[in-house]
Each structure stands twice: as structure tokens, then as C-alpha cells.
């Protein structure tokens, strides 16, 4: 029979090990993030793979998200005849909350999981050791370019996604609710403040950094063959999702 105290203790040690590892990883990324230490080709490759390849899925998701939000709000807008508030309602929630959080989750599922699987496979096939044997710091060469690319690209994708979602909302409002798209745009310009937009961008920065650190950390500590890669990807996706919601709570609280 398993001693429950022993199990709790082991679980706590495992948790402490993960938190400690994440903090050390953050420190090592910070120490190696100076521009002159970066490997240019690796950064460009990461930017391309992370950003360009994520662009279509983010645009499609954002377009549909904007459309869904307008459909959901449509019932009340029609009931109260508040057509002039449709753009504000959709814009406020998209820019502050729904845009960064949905794109962040999408990004973590696609890019974060991919990064963990890639680094995990490199780890179990000795490619990480091969770098070390060639006097190359794997954190500087593999992790830093990916984290920087994720921070930058999630920011860019959230900006693009915000506009795509507003576009989707405007089109849906016009087609389904008969709200003129010009009224929709006027409502956004009139009521949405710059800080509503930047609020979402702060979140994108923090989410990008969290996904980058978490996905790289779990990738770099993979062991145990193909099953180990599966476990690492699972831990990375769950960890990133938790981080997104926890940081979202604190940022929203702090910025109100």
C-alpha cells in the first residue's frame, strides 16, 4: 500500500523541482538574450516557423470569434435597439480578453506543443548533447531564439487577430443583424480607448513569454523515449494553459 504522506511529499518535490527549473530557465534565457549573443539564422528560422505558419489559423479563428461574439450579442442588441453599441461591445471584449486569451491558447497548442516535441526529440536523440559536445550552449542556441520568437510573434499575431476578429464582427453584424459596418466602426472609434488595445498587448507579451519558457523547459528535460516526449508535450500544454489563465487574472486585476 502506498503511504499517502510519501505520495504527497513526492508530488511536492516534483512540483518544487518544476518551479525551480522554470526559474533557472528564465534566468538562463535572460542571461543569453543580449543581441550579440543571439544566433541570427536560428532567430530568423524560429520567427518564420512560429509566425508565418501560425498566421492562417490565427486569422480564421479570429474571424470566427468576432462573428460568434456579434451573434451572441445580437439578441440583446436587437431587443434594446442598441445598434450603436455593437462595435464597442465586440471590440472591448475582443481587444481586452477574448483576442489574447484565445490566440494565446491556440498558440500554446500549436507552437508550444510543437516546440516541446521538437526539443524533446532532440534531447532523446542526443542532438542536445551533440551541441554541448561542440561547445555550444543549448539554451543560447535552441531556447533563446524560440522564446524571443514566441514573445514577438504572439504580439504580432494578437494584433492581426484583433483586427481580423473586428472585421469578422463587422461583416456578421452587417449580414445577420443589418448593422451598417460603418456604424460598427464608428462605435469602436468612439468608445474604445487606446488602453483597451494595449491591455491585450501586455497580455500577449506575458503569454508569449510564459509559453516560450514552459514549452522549452519541458522539451529540454524530456527523458524516456517516445513516451517521454508525449508526457513532456502534455505537461507543456497543460502548464501553458494554466499560466495563461493565472497571468490573465493578475494582469486584468492589476490593470483595472
Amino acid at each position, binding site marked *: 500500500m502506498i503511504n499517502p504522506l510519501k505520495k504527497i511529499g513526492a508530488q511536492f518535490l516534483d512540483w518544487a523541482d518544476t518551479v525551480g527549473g522554470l526559474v533557472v530557465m528564465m534566468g538562463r534565457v535572460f542571461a543569453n538574450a543580449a543581441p550579440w549573443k543571439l544566433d541570427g539564422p536560428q532567430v530568423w528560422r524560429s520567427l518564420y516557423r512560429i509566425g508565418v505558419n501560425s498566421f492562417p489559423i490565427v486569422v480564421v479563428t479570429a474571424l470566427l470569434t468576432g462573428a460568434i461574439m456579434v451573434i451572441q450579442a445580437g439578441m440583446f442588441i436587437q431587443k434594446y435597439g442598441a445598434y450603436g453599441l455593437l462595435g464597442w461591445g465586440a471590440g472591448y471584449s475582443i481587444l481586452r480578453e477574448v483576442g489574447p486569451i484565445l490566440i494565446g491558447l491556440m498558440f500554446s497548442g500549436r507552437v508550444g506543443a510543437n516546440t516541446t516535441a521538437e526539443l524533446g526529440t532532440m534531447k532523446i536523440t542526443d*542532438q542536445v*548533447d551533440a551541441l554541448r*559536445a561542440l561547445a555550444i550552449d543549448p539554451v543560447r542556441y535552441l531556447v533563446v531564439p524560440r522564446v524571443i520568437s514566441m514573445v514577438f510573434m504572439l504580439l504580432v499575431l494578437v494584433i492581426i487577430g484583433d483586427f481580423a476578429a473586428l472585421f469578422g464582427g463587422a461583416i456578421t453584424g452587417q449580414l445577420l443583424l443589418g448593422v451598417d459596418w460603418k456604424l460598427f466602426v464608428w462605435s469602436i472609434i468612439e468608445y474604445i480607448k487606446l488602453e483597451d488595445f494595449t491591455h491585450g498587448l501586455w497580455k500577449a507579451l506575458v503569454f508569449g513569454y510564459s509559453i516560450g519558457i514552459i514549452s522549452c523547459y519541458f522539451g529540454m528535460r524530456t527523458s524516456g523515449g517516445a513516451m517521454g516526449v508525449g508526457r513532456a508535450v502534455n505537461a507543456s500544454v497543460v502548464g501553458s494553459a494554466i499560466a495563461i489563465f493565472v497571468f490573465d487574472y493578475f494582469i486584468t486585476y492589476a490593470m483595472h
Partner: protein
Amino acid sequence: MIRVENISKSHLGRPVLRDISFVVEDGSNLGLIGPGGSGKTVLLKIICGLIRPDSGKIFINDVDVMSLKETELAELRKGLGMLFQNYALFDDMTVSENIAFPLRQAGTASEEEIQGLVKGLLQEIGLPTAAEKYPNELSGGMKKRVSFARAVIHQPPILFYDDPTAGLDPVTSSKIFRLLTQMKAEHGTTSITVSHDIDGIKEICENFVMLERGELIFYGSREEIEATDIKFVRQFWDASSDDELG
């Protein structure tokens, strides 16, 4: 010179290596032999500083590897080359990019020189037309040869070969051993070669260490191993199957 002193290592409470000591003289090739799971790869990784032992010391050219910080260790590794058991080629790079990688990272040679060296090495390893292929397009033997080329392109004075001929056909194995011999003859490299291919390793090593279940059971010259009366070593050396090994 490589000096290994009283190295011990455990994993999950189970001893992997127990009190291993030996010396590899400059310009010589030491054969590290033993059954699978006896700790050869772990020992090789400890020697080049990829794994930390629980106790013991490693000296490379009189530098205590264990006392070095990661940055100092990286500096030391610039003089080492390693051929990994499972190739460890970078999947996202072509063959020529893989081979050129150590030199490009070191930044010590011009692109023209690098291209020339890569081309020459591709000829030597018999893969002149594979430059633009990716590792997943190569057979095991081809990957091994590319991995060898990457390990030696910066002409390190010390080389570690982890099972360079595992899973290869006899012709490719003989090619690999010929390349190892050539490397030593041309550059006077000091090396440690892990191999199960006794016939091949006999020809290229002067001294041998044999491990069994993490313990050193033989350390000596080729003449000594051929004359030894340690039954297990004899069986392994003669590839006898009279009794079950290990």
C-alpha cells in the same frame, strides 16, 4: 593525455559505474569494450563532461574537468570531437550544414574554406552526392559517416567514438575503421573508441578497457588482453559462445 580516476556513478540508486580508473596516452587509441549496459556510453559522456559523476576525477591534458564551470568546459570541448552512438545529426540541417556546423559556430574559418573542407570530407567518407540531403533521407551507415565527418572537421586533438560501427554492414564498418585509422595517422589524435566489433577494434586500438556491470575487469595492452586468463574477457575477445556472457 586523458586520466580517469576512481569514477563512480549511480542512476536511481543503482550503480552504473564503480571506481573506474585508467589512462589514455597522447596519440593513442583506447578501446572501451564490454557487453551492452555495462556503462561504456555513460563513461564516455562523463569523460567529455556531458554527465557529472558522483565521485572521481577526469583530467584532460592535466585539466581537472570536474572543477570547470560550464563556460570553461565549453572552451575545453572545442578541442574534443564526439561521434554519437545514434548519430545525433541535426534533423533540420542538410548533410553539408551538419558537417560544417562546428566550424561555422567556431567562426574560425572563412565560408570558402568551410565549403572546401566539407567537400573534401564528403569525398573521403564516400558521400560526394549527399551534400544537400537531410538526415532522414540517409541510411544508418550514411548517417554514421556524416556524424564522423562532423566530429572531425575541426580536427580536434581528442576524439571519442561511441560505437562507430553499430548496426552497419561489414563493408561500411571497415570503411569507418579505415577513416578512424586515417584520422589518427594524419593528425595524431588521442581517442577512445567504444565498440562491440572486436575484430575491427583490435586493429585500431593499442590499449583496452573492459567493463562489466559498471566495473572495470580489464585494463591493458593488446598483447595483455590476448594473453589474459580472465574467462569473461577471453570469451568476449574471442567472441566465444561456449558460455553465456554476463
